[in-house]
Structure formats: C-alpha cells, structure tokens
C-alpha cells in the first residue's frame, strides 16, 4: 500500500488537472480548487520540513565535529535569531521599522547581494581563461557574446554612433536576441515541453515509479 496510495493520488490529481484545463466546469473546477489549496498547504508544510531538516543536519554536524562545523553554528544562530525576532514581533513583523525588517534590510539584503555580486568577478575571470575561439561553434558563440555584451549597454551605441540608425551595435544585439536567440530558445522549450508531457503521462499512469524510491 505504501506504493499504491501515492500512485492513486498522483493519478487522480494529474487527470483532474489535465481535464479541468479543457473542461473548467463543475465538478472539475471545484476539484481543481481543492487540489490547488492542498498543494499550497503541503508546500507550506514542506517549508517547515526543510527548515527543521536544515537544523537537524547542522546540529549533527556540530555534534560530530565534522569539517567546517563552525559554519553550522552560524546557520543555527542566524536561523534562531531571525525566527525568534519574527515570532516576538507578531503578525506585523514585516512592517517598516520592526527589528525583523532592520535585519532584513541591513544584514540579509547586503549579505546576499554581496554573494551574488561576486559572480561578476568570477564570470570575468572564467571568460578570460576559458572563452576561446577553439572551433567554428565556439567562435560563433564568442562573436554573439561579443556583440550582445556591447550592444546591451549604452557604450555599444556610442561606439557605433557614426553608423546610420538601424545598423548600430544595439540594433545588432536586438536582432540577435529577437531572432537567433529566440529561435534557439523555442527549440529548447519545445523539446522540454515534449519531455515534460511524456514524463508526466508516465507518472500519472503509474508507469514511471522512480519518484517513489523504487526502480
């Protein structure tokens, strides 16, 4: 039954979601509303599960003195600090001027922005060391990147200001984005969509069972 019940739930919910898209009337619209609400509830519980799991893993790391256990201490302290302050401030914890908002604005926001900003340095360094015109395809990619990087910033327009309008780097970048790039994206999206349809059908019909932990 540990395998059959999840398979039945998946099958019913999957079929209802497919049918209600084409027949948005009773009873399918009602069932769609129930299942969507349940999905939100299950996902809200999953957030708790994820948070508690993070705590458990971090505590285990500290208890067993695994490598970099100091970072686990930082995780637990930060987690508890922000959670306790949030709970203490009640329902209006996200209002401007609260301690929670202060932590969000002046600790969380700068830290996470800094982490993301470091990408600029790594991207530049990686481009310098690895972006090579090794063969025809790589050269095409390099040229496209060259024109888009220049054309997507105002300096590209300034560098080709002597050219007539419609022939400047910004126009070239727009053309690359609108045509070759969009064509490539569409091909990828159609491929992904077909893959999702076939995998979803296999899961709904119970043919694909790997998500249940079996073969």
């Amino acid at each position, binding site marked *: 039954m540990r395998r059959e019940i999840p398979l039945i739930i998946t099958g019913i919910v999957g079929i209802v979601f497919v049918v209600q898209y084409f027949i948005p009337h009773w009873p399918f619209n009602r069932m*769609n509303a129930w299942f969507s609400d349940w999905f939100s509830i299950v996902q809200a519980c999953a*957030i708790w599960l994820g948070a508690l799991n993070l705590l458990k893993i971090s505590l285990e790391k500290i208890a067993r003195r695994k490598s970099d256990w100091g970072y686990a201490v930082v995780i637990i302290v930060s987690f508890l600090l922000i959670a306790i302050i949030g709970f203490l401030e009640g329902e209006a914890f996200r209002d401007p001027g609260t301690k929670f908002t202060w932590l969000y604005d002046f600790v969380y926001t700068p830290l*996470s922005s800094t982490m993301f900003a470091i990408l600029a340095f790594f991207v530049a360094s990686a481009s310098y060391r690895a972006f090579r015109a090794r063969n025809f395809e790589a050269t095409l990619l*390099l040229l496209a990147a060259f024109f888009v990087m220049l054309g997507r910033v105002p300096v590209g327009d300034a560098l080709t200001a002597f050219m007539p309008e419609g022939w400047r780097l910004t126009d070239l970048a727009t053309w690359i984005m609108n045509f070759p790039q969009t064509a490539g*994206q569409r091909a990828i999206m159609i491929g992904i969509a077909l893959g999702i349809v076939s995998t979803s059908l296999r899961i709904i019909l119970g043919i694909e069972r790997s998500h249940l932990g079996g073969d």
Partner: protein
Amino acid sequence: MSTRVKEILVVVLVLLFSAVIYAGKVSGWMTGVSFSPAVSVLVIVALAASLIVILVMTIKGRLVGRRTVFLYVGFAVALPLFMSISQYIPTSPEVRSLYEGLESLPDGSKVLVSFDYDPPSAPELQPMAESFFRYAFDRKFKVIIMGLWPQGPLQANQAIERVMQDEKYASLGLQYGVDYCNLGFQTGNEFVIQRMGSDFRSMFPTDYSGTHYEDLPIVRNVKNFSNVDYVFNLSAGYPGTIEWVQVAVDRYGVKLGAGNTAVQAPQCYPYLRSGQLIGILGGMNGAAEFEKMTGHEAKGTKFMLSQSFSHMIVIAFIIIGNVAFFMGGRKSNLSA
C-alpha cells in the same frame, strides 16, 4: 612578499576603503563627490592604456593572473560611480512596447504587481520596481502587490519606502489599502496564479500584515483577474514570468508586462514575439530604458555607466585571453 600576505593586504585595503566611503556617506562629505568630466576621461584613458600594456605583455608571453582581472572588474564597477559622464540610453522595442502598453491604460486602472525575486537580484530589479511605482502613482493607478517568493513583498515595501522619500510622492497623500496594498507571499507557485484566476481571496485571505481582504477598499471588488487591468511581474527565476504567461495569460487572458534579470530575460523572448508578453525590461539596461521613458532617471540610469565599463573590461580580457590562446599555439595556459 608572499601571495598570502598580498591577499590579506588587499582585503585590509578594501575594508579601509569601504570604511572611508561609509564614514563619508554618514557624515555627508561624500555627497556630491564626483570626478570632473576631464578627470573622468583621464581615468578612462589610464584604464585603456593599462589594458593595452597587458595586451602587449600577453603578446610577449607574460600572462596576467586572475587577481588582475578581479582588480580591473573592481575598478570598472566602482570608478564610474564617481564619474560625471552621461550616456545616451537608446530605447529597445521591447521596453517601448511595455511602456506603450501601460500608457494605453486609463488613469486609475487597477494594476497587480507580483514581486518574484529576492535581494540577490535586487540591484537589477529594484530600480524597475521603484520606477514602476513612480509611474503608477503618477497615473493614479491602484496598485495591488503580491509575491510568489517569500522575500518579494519585503522588496516591494523597500521600493515603496524609497519612492515615498521623494517629496512629490509623499505629498500625494497615498493611502494604504486605498491606493495600494501588499497582499504578501503565498506558497504554491503557479497554483497560486491558477487559484487567483477564480478567486484572489482564497489565496490571500489577509494582506501581509493581517488585515482582512474585505477590509481593504482597493481589492473589495476584485474577485479574479477579470477585475485587474494589467499585471506587471518582476521575476528572477522560478516561479516567475514563465509561469505567469503559462497560467495567467494563456488561461485567463491577462495583459502581462515583465521585468527580468538579464540572465532570465532571454528565456522570455519567445513569449514576447508571440504577443503573450506586452513587453520586457531586461536587466539593469531595461530598468534604465524604462526610467528614461517614464522621465524618472534614477538608480538604473546611474549604474549603467558601471555596467558599460564592466562589459568593456570583460570583453577586453576575453580578447587578451584569445590572444594568449593563439600566441601559445592554441594551448590555453591561463590556469593562474
């Protein structure tokens, strides 16, 4: 001097520099500090000359390491913030169509704004949010805010606070619950959008601070998407613009405009070409273009000089790297 000592020295210097900048900002003497156009040009010439020196060194077989690249990226991002050079920002068709879509709405229209991003993407998306709010309040739009990402509604609060620091908007006497409201975050990704198609209140029984949906005059007559004139989505990934297109646009016929990070924007172009998206603001450039079109030049425009410089530096180093590749008999030896 060993590499370790050099690294520590650089960190100390950066910290000192940051402390001086912060102290200057707090005490006020930094405000308005900027290089004159002549000094700015000199700085640009010096940077360009040093890059040519690096190119010559590379041709001679002396390669620079990644720390040099980091240093140049740092210069490219930081120095333009002090430069007094203005750039002409051309407007792309996708930004123009988004703007025209908004212009076609009558004053006082109801607009839903979904904040689907978190602080790491804020440098690109927050300027879009701020200029959108400025434009919306100018046009007396009724703005309903929500988020499919937990941090989204907080980003919206930051943007509103920032806009309200401007005397013009503070004096408008905008009322929470009447002119704008923040419904907060709801879990469920695209299922939230789907449920909103039939009933907003089922997903947002209260706003983010606990006020009941029925007690907010702005949404009292809003049952589903048919009561909203326009949806603007600010997105940095999943769930985001693609989900809004697939559910809200395809199923409920919503008018949708989007602001995306530069990384995500290319994925949304197919929807733009097919007419499912009215327009896209892509990355900081999109924000700057939108600011220009709405006549509120702010952060996006200011930071475009840094963006231009950093793109130029990356391109310069790609060229230098390729020179090294071809000079070295097509064997990359840039492992430093």
